[in-house]
């Protein structure tokens, strides 16, 4: 039944008009007045007391944009919404580069998200600038003693506080094509030093069919190789005072080593991005690659069906430089951080959500979305047959074991952190964002510049353009 049929006032008006008691003009005028009154009454009638319908809207940005993880996050958010009608979680996934830009714009507008994923160096930089808050209450609520010490290690600062909470962890690995070993006398298990590796790299190169190693030349990824190799050669990018240490022997040795690796790289390596290196490995255009657990997805997508297994896509040992004692790999611990400028009620709601997120039944869904890459932060999960029995974890168990081993020996460090003390360098995030380290590598490897001169130029830039500006 339409509204006017239920409204006696409107019915009377229409009847009067039909009977000729009202002129057309008078009918329209009174009808207009009635409708306006009804509309106003409707609006007033729908207003509820302040606070009764107030919903806290929480904005959370993460760096897991792949569809499977998005679906898992969406399901968790929906389940949370059923229990918390007063909280709306807006979870958005994006790539690292997008996150960097979006965060900058949000910070400049003093309108950051409630919480977001970051890197450890970003935590350090943001903490030094007063942009984030500690999350001790969250870590303790989830269970500090349940989390891997190697995860917590990179979240706790000298003030004794936790400044972030890792959503999931991973360790970088050297992947090698087992099928390319046939017909060579190469045994990667024997590799201990850079010299061992350099000896065998040419044997794993059959250009242009395939190359010995694939690296990305783009700054973010070149930074990864710079600090992993520097750390594997006993060096660090910063001295004890946080000043650049690029002119030290371990770093110069790393640059010389890179020059020797160069002939085994694809000729266009300097323009390859990270995902290109993964697809090159999956499709057989390269024998080795530095990679993460998510590469399993690329293998399933691009490799021939009969090769999609860890016997072909093996894990090979990382080696040490002449000045190093142990190889260093990258630890991906990507903590959630909470922004100081976000409203308090949003932060409280976001913490409620994360407590819900880290409950076993929810967190397992999240980790299972990329099973060998989003590794659980809880120690007990690695003893749990349900977690370890996931078909993908069983299938790629050597990959999982390799990551756990890196964590156990304590040689998986977050990006740019060769020594634990580097975590306190307040401008480490700024160094990571700038292309200075990648430029240094390109100057030496691609433009033939003397490593000492290139290292000095990079040091000067860090001192002038980053440390100088930070102090100013």
């Amino acid at each position, binding site marked *: 039944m339409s509204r006017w049929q239920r409204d006696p006032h409107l019915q009377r008006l229409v009847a009067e008009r039909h009977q000729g008691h009202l002129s057309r003009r008078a009918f329209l005028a009174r009808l207009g007045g009635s409708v306006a009154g009804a509309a106003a009454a409707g609006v007033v009638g729908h207003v509820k007391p302040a606070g009764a319908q107030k919903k806290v809207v929480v904005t959370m940005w993460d760096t897991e944009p792949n569809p499977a993880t998005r679906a898992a996050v969406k399901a968790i958010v929906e389940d949370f919404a059923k229990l918390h009608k007063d909280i709306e979680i807006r979870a958005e996934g994006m790539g690292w580069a997008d996150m960097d830009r979006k965060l900058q714009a949000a910070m400049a507008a003093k309108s950051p998200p409630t919480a977001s994923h970051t890197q450890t160096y970003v935590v350090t930089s943001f903490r030094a600038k007063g942009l984030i808050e500690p999350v001790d209450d969250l870590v303790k609520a989830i269970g500090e003693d349940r989390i891997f010490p190697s995860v917590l290690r990179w979240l706790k600062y000298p003030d004794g506080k936790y400044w972030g909470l890792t959503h999931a962890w991973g360790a970088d690995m050297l992947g090698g094509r087992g099928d390319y070993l046939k017909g060579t006398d190469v045994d990667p298990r024997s590799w201990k030093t850079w010299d061992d590796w350099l000896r065998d790299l040419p044997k794993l190169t059959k250009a242009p069919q395939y190359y010995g190693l694939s690296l990305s030349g783009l700054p973010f990824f070149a930074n990864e190789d710079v600090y992993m190799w520097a750390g594997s050669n006993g060096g660090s990018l910063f001295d004890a005072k946080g000043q650049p240490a690029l002119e030290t022997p371990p770093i110069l040795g790393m640059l010389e080593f890179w020059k020797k690796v160069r002939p085994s790289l694809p000729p266009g390596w300097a*323009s390859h991005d990270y995902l290109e290196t993964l697809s090159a490995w999956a499709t057989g255009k390269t024998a080795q690659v530095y990679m993460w657990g998510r590469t399993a997805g690329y293998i399933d997508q691009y490799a021939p069906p009969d090769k999609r297994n860890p016997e072909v896509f093996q894990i090979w040992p990382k080696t040490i430089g002449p000045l190093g004692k142990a190889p260093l790999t990258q630890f991906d611990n990507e903590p959630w951080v909470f922004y100081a400028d976000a409203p308090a009620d949003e932060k409280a709601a976001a913490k409620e959500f994360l407590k819900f997120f880290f409950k076993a039944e929810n967190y397992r869904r999240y980790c299972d979305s990329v099973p060998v890459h989003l590794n659980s932060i809880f120690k007990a999960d690695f003893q749990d047959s349900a977690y370890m029995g996931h078909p993908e974890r069983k299938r790629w168990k050597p990959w999982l074991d390799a990551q756990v081993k890196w964590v156990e020996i304590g040689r998986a460090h977050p990006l740019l952190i060769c020594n634990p003390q580097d975590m306190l360098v307040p401008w480490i995030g700024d160094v990571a*964002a700038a292309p200075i380290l990648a430029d240094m590598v390109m100057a030496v490897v691609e433009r033939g510049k003397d490593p000492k001169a290139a290292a000095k130029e990079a040091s000067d830039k860090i001192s002038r353009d980053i440390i100088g500006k930070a102090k100013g």
Partner: protein
Amino acid sequence: MSRRRRQALIGMGLLLPSAALVLVFTLFPVGYNLWLGFYAKHSLRATSTWVGLGNYAQLLGDPDFWRSVWLATEYAVLSTALQIVVGVAAALILHQRFPGCDFLRGVALFPYMIPTVIAVFVWRWLMNDLYGVIPYVLGTLPIPMPAAWLTHDTIMWVLIVLSVWTFFPFVLVNVLARLQTIPPELYDAARVDGASAARQFAHVTLPQLRNVLLIVMLLRGIWMFTKFDVPWLLGFGGGAGEAIRTLPVFTYQRSFTYYQAGMGAALSNVMFGLLLMAVTIYFIAFPPAEEANDA
């Protein structure tokens, strides 16, 4: 209030919204950018420090800045010149009537219409040293070719060719439109005088195209000098992309990867000043001809 005064007030009132929009969206950002160039300001912090001309002084002594100016100039000059050559040649061809010419006129606009990000990523795939079709085909030719094209030595050429492919239709459309308005009597007269096709082009077509070409050259030159998206998407400002770190890319990196908002603003101001100088010189060297000369 007099009628004249009332009309003036109404006129000003009507102009006010437009003037306010220009003020808010054009003059304010430009003024703010000029002001910001005198400060050292971290992109993530609300505070800033007055440095006067410090940012500009630092730029003058920075070899990376001068390199970016050189790369931007090289890119702008070569890509604009080639766009003009290819655009005029294509316009002359499409000015003729032949079967399929209407279809070709539509197809010729295609590179200009597709989004830049798609165009650049397609070219990145085409030029990839491991999978790309173009290096593969070029590799079959009996002449020496680089093993890869997206390298420090050759990426600038890829950028130029890609830019010419993407932007020559702008030249084509403008020149073709002008060609269609040249009176045929001029060509008839030239033919009666025994002028060859080449002489007709040199003495009839080119003079008639002069004004259009001057404007197109100016616009394309400015746009290529300030072009950010194509060099950025092709090289991402690092790796081999270091070799195409033109002034706009350098400016972007100062603002958003070095987090130097003040320096980035100073660089934008320098870019504006350089363009202003170039345009002034351009108009002195090539004053627009009187419209009467065209007909």
